[in-house]
């Protein structure tokens, strides 16, 4: 009797349904995904949005936009430049690739606007550790100094086993095809002016030394430099609008796309790199629809070394906020 009553009283059928907790979790995820996947391509960058669709492995945007401010940027071995400010995009070399910091050949750096300064030590590193690194070489041990409107270079000219201390002086100009032309009007050997003699003999510097390297070639009395190819990979893209020599070095101004504007994050400080949009691979990690701020840990200038970024960033501290914005604070 009591048992029978219990049977009737206690019978109940379950209703299988999604629990409130997972429903809540999924609602929150949907809201977050709208933020994570929202394309935030910098203003003025036309074309990037004509990319693929969003998947779990791709933002669908095929280039990474970067803004650098007050940064010592180095490719490798001291070769680089000081960036006062640059708006750039990292562009894929192959359509199905990815911008991978471990493979600088996987992308090109297109400079849209801004200013970079090659200090004398940058120029020395460029020539001594990159341009003139081949054997046998005609020139070595370049020591460059700059002055308003002038650039001077001391180097060892190698002629059949002899090192001839040579000094060059000249001005810089931009050619019509947007190459830098170092127009040499002073040549000294052993401290003796010889430029007049060479010209009197109808000879040029190329009769003494042949220099034909990617992005750099010696002409009669001029050194022609293509900034797109002169540096270690990745190649640079974009025209120089103005080149000026001053006591602090060679200042290059770019203005191909003056209207490129970024949504710079709060707390960026005075010296930083900001990645906005596109997919960036580093450390084997892919930041999708990247929003990454790299800044120094103390109020000083950020140094960024592309070829050695792992060493530098492995000493950094990262944070990832719920909107997917990554902040990397460097230690050195």
């Amino acid at each position, binding site marked *: 009797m009591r048992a029978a009553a219990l049977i009737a009283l206690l019978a109940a059928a379950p209703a*299988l349904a999604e629990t409130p907790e997972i429903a*809540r979790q999924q609602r929150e995820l949907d809201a977050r995904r709208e933020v994570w996947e929202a394309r935030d391509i910098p203003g003025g960058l036309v074309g990037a949005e004509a990319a693929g669709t969003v998947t779990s492995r791709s933002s669908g945007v095929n280039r990474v936009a970067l803004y650098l401010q007050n940064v010592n940027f180095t490719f490798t071995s001291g070769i680089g430049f000081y960036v006062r400010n640059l708006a750039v995009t990292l562009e894929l070399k192959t359509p199905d690739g990815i911008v991978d910091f471990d493979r600088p050949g996987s992308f090109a750096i297109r400079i849209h606007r801004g200013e970079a300064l090659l200090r004398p030590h940058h120029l020395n590193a460029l020539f001594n550790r990159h341009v003139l690194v081949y054997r046998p070489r005609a020139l070595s041990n370049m020591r460059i100094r700059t002055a308003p409107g002038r650039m001077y270079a001391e180097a060892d000219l190698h002629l059949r086993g002899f090192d001839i201390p040579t000094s060059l002086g000249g001005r810089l100009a931009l050619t019509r095809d947007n190459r830098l032309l170092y127009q040499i009007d002073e040549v000294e050997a052993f401290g003796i002016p010889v430029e007049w003699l060479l010209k009197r003999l109808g000879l040029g510097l190329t009769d003494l030394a042949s220099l034909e390297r990617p992005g750099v070639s010696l002409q009669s009395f001029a050194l022609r430099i293509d900034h797109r190819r002169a540096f270690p990979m990745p190649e640079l893209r974009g025209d120089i609008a103005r080149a000026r020599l001053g006591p602090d070095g060679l200042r290059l101004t770019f203005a191909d796309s003056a209207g490129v504007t970024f949504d710079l994050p709060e707390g960026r400080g005075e010296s930083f790199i900001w990645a906005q949009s596109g997919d960036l691979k580093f*450390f084997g990690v892919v930041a*999708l629809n990247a929003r990454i701020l790299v800044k120094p840990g103390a109020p000083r200038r950020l140094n960024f070394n592309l070829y050695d970024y792992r060493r530098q960033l492995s000493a950094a501290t990262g944070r990832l906020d719920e909107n997917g914005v990554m902040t990397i604070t460097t230690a050195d």
Partner: protein
Amino acid sequence: MLWRAALMAVLAALAFPAEGRDARAAAKNRQAAALEREAEARNMLGAYTIPQIRPKTTRDSGREGMMLFIRNANFRFVRGVGFFGEDLIVAVNANDGLSPVIFDDPQAVTLRVLSGSLVVSPQALTDLLNSHVFNFAGAPVRNLRAATAVNALTLSGEMNRRGKWAPFSMTGLVTMEGGSRIAFAPAEIAIDGRSATELLKAANVALDELIRLEAPGVKLEGDVIRMDAAALFPPPKMAFDLAAASVDARGLRLTMTAPLAPAWPKPPLARDSYALIKGGDVKFLTVMTVNTLMQIVAADGGALDFSLYDYRPQLAAGTFQFRMDGGLIVSLARSGDPEALK
């Protein structure tokens, strides 16, 4: 002009060729290839290799999933629902066979526990039953409470009786059945504070004649409550084969087995409590790791307490560090959830 021609010839002979290799670029590419090989080796775990099921790309390891190693850490699905993992090895795969394992979407992945033990504390079992298993309209029981002792699980709560709720209590053994199934056979039953054990026995009434107790992963059959332990938990979907099931003062202990389990890898950081992910592709928020090496630890150096549904605030309040080899150390802030597993 003979002298000029002679001088030109001499100078031409002295001029050096300007060809050279970009050794630095080649070295950089070799370094990248070596790093990629090292990363790919993370899929090899002793005798176990995470299968490659898709072509590799720059964004895809091609691997079936990732391997999760949980040592002495609280793994919560949500709030207090979860378990304490003791040397658990879990294969985690994306359900669609294409995506990375997405941390943020528990419904998109499957966990297959290969070895190790998990302990569901009495409080966690209580939370599991109330907030998940019997959290549906028309549930026949409520306000459940689990208590454990050596070889004894006590389940108490209220049963619905024509709109009124009657207190009940059941105590018995938990035993292992095949696969991921366990059985709870109450030997003592009390209703309204009075023992009903003898009455039911005398009336030859089985428990399932008293109450239709059915929920995802739970079904009362005769006098035995049969549970699929893998189906009890909230998403993600779980699967495992039990080697042992027992109850003691710490709670319900389940030990898993599989024909082949990976070797336990050495973690980057020497900690007593951590979760380590090796191999495959993992995505959290907007970040995807390919051929993953990630160690998750507590930022305060204590025991790791990971809450799957609510890990983002833990992550945002914590920090991460890259290692030279591409490994990632993630330090999670302690959850602000007061219902953390005891």
